[in-house]
Each structure stands twice: as structure tokens, then as C-alpha cells.
């Protein structure tokens, strides 16, 4: 399943989760659905960390850039306006991914 490209996809990938899901006995539709929830959860997390880190006057500009799907421009804006943007986004996303991975691991243990 191809996820919609986002401005942070060069630093955040859900591929490891997709691979983890492959290890469970799930139908393709079920895997797709779970992957979509994971992608969407990561997306919320990244939007939250960026919006939280931006001053009010820059939030609208950020959303306008993101809405235009111009990923390069959006990423440049974020990098310019948010201190340690890459690290902040990566940490927030990794933290969520760990939680999701743990849920999968727990399932395997109980199986």
C-alpha cells in the first residue's frame, strides 16, 4: 500500500511497522487498514509537534504550504522556523512507532 507522500517522509517512515504487520496472520485488507491508521496517527503526531513549535503567526503559513502539497517548500519552511525540526519530528514519530510496535509484539507474545 502506497501512503500519500508527506513533507516529512524523508525522516519518518512507517515501513518498519508495515513489516511488523506482515508477521501477523492478517488479510491484505486488514493490513492495509492498520497501516492506514498508523500512517494517520503519525501524521497527527507530526502536525502536532510542528504546530506546537511554531509561533502563532507562522501556523497558517505552514498549513497553507502543506495544503499545496509542495513538500520541498513545506519542509524548508519548517526547517527555517522550528529549531531542531528534524530531531523533534523524528523523536515524536519514533516514540509513537515504538508504542505501535510494542502493541504488535504483545500480540505475538500472547499468541
Amino acid at each position, binding site marked *: 500500500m502506497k501512503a500519500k507522500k508527506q513533507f516529512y517522509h524523508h525522516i519518518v517512515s512507517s515501513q518498519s511497522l508495515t513489516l511488523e504487520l506482515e508477521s501477523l496472520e492478517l488479510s491484505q485488507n486488514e493490513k492495509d487498514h492498520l497501516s492506514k491508521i498508523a500512517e494517520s496517527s503519525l501524521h497527527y503526531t507530526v*502536525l502536532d509537534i510542528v504546530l506546537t513549535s511554531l509561533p502563532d503567526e507562522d501556523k497558517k503559513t505552514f498549513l497553507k504550504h502543506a495544503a499545496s502539497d509542495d513538500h520541498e517548500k513545506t519542509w524548508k519552511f519548517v526547517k527555517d522556523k522550528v529549531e531542531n525540526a528534524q530531531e523533534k519530528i523524528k523523536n515524536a514519530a519514533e516514540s509513537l512507532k515504538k508504542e505501535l510496535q510494542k502493541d504488535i509484539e504483545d500480540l505475538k507474545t500472547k499468541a
Partner: protein
Amino acid sequence: MPKNSHYQHLAEKWLSRHGELEKNLWSKHGDTLHWLQQNSAHTLIGAVGGLLLLTTGFLAQGAAHKVQAQEMVIKPLDTSAKLLIQLHEKLPDQVRPLTADEEKEIGKVLSDTYNMKVSAELQGIRLNRSYGLIGAEQHLYRYPGDTLDQHFDTAEDANLYASSGVAPGLGAWGYFAPSRAQFGKKDEMREKYYIAVQTFLAPGFNEHVGQYGLFFKYRKMLVVNPENGKAIVADIADAGPSEFTGKHLGGSPEVMHYLERQDGAARGPVLYFFIDDPHDTIPLGPVENI
């Protein structure tokens, strides 16, 4: 734990977490998100695409979006939501002709979703494109002596569709029936759910005008609005629009109304694929209950 409950368990847990993330986002940044929603409802799809993929209906819900989003999220994806997700992933950001691979993939999605065989190419013939901007057409005269008020069975229909008027000329194949006496239900449906496509731009058209004319005449196509999943079985009854209009096909007033598409600055794209229906078993009109 039984294997078949793995999905259930994960889906419930992840959706619950997703709901919390969503609630948090709207609670902290609702003002900015509302601003974008109000200022650019269309582009919000791109702005928070991941978010909206699971809450497809919430853009249309206006102020109720938070509740709606939560409700949508805790339900398994229905067919319509799955379709929107798949189209969102497979369609390009720009409205451009699809590649052969894209047409094949999207044709399969549409065939599976709507339970009919559709493709961008049929019997070796294809149009110039299968994804393009649709504009509004007028009604067409159906038989000699036809008038606009004879087009509508109910006052409601007249109220909805009469304002579009009737095109001064006939459709590409003339009248739908040679006389009022010979005008039947099939002819009525053909005018009601017609589209105009750029037959003259189809590859090979100039070399095979006669053959292509026969092929295109009342050929059924599945027309889909990829932004709401609404689909209609339409027939080709006219050629157009001209290239300079910037539009790629036209829809009858009834087609445009059902697809929720508009002309002018608000015009938007549709997918249009040939339906393989050799025995003429698929009725023209809206495709419901997917």
C-alpha cells in the same frame, strides 16, 4: 489469542489512540485548522491528508467535525471510504492524463468497487484521457418538436434542472429518436445521463472516423467523482468540449448534479472509464449502494 482477533484487537487499540491524537490536535490547534477549513475547503484535503483519510466525511460536516471524526474513526472502513483512500493514493496531485499503469490500477479499483468491468481502453479504442475536468452541458433535444418542459416528470426535477436550458444544436448523433411516438424510456435515459467527450481527440480518430463514430455512439462510461466517491453510468451522446475551454468532458445537468460537480471556477475532476457491457445489462444512472 485466536489469530482472527489480532486485527480486531489492534484496530480497536490503534483507533482509540488515533482518536486521542486527533482530539489533542483539534484541542490545541483547532483555531488554525478551522481557519484553513474555512478558507480553503478543497485544499484541506491536502493539508491534513493523513487525518482525513480516516475521517473522509468530516469535511462536509462543518462545525460538527470533531464528533463526526471520532465517530468515523471508530468504525471499520466501509466500501466508500476504502474507495476514496485508494483513489487518493493512486491519483496524481495534478489533473493530468493518467499513465497506462495508473489507468490499469484505477480501472481495477473501480471495477472491484462498482462490480462492473471498466477500462480506459475498450476494443482497442481509447479517449485522449480518462481523468479530467468536467464542465456543465445543457439538455439536448431528443426528438423533433421536443421542448424543455417535456424533459421533466416532476416539478422537483424541473426546479433542479430546467435552468440549464437546451443546447441550440443537436447532440453528435442527432435526435435520440426520430419522432415523439418513437421516443422510449431508453432514449429518455440516454439524454438524461449523457456526457460529451472529446472523441475528436481520441488517438486514431481521424484515420477511423466511421468506426470510431459507431463505437462512441451512446457508449456507456462510468464517471466517478474521486473526491466523494459518487459514480454514475453515463453514455456518450455528444462530442466536446473544445480544447480551448480547458475542460475535458461535459456532463448533463443530471450528471453534474449527482456527482456534485460544478462548472466555472469551482469545476473539478472526474474519472471516466469505458464500461464493458456487451449485453446492455447495466442501467444508466447513479450507481448506489456500493
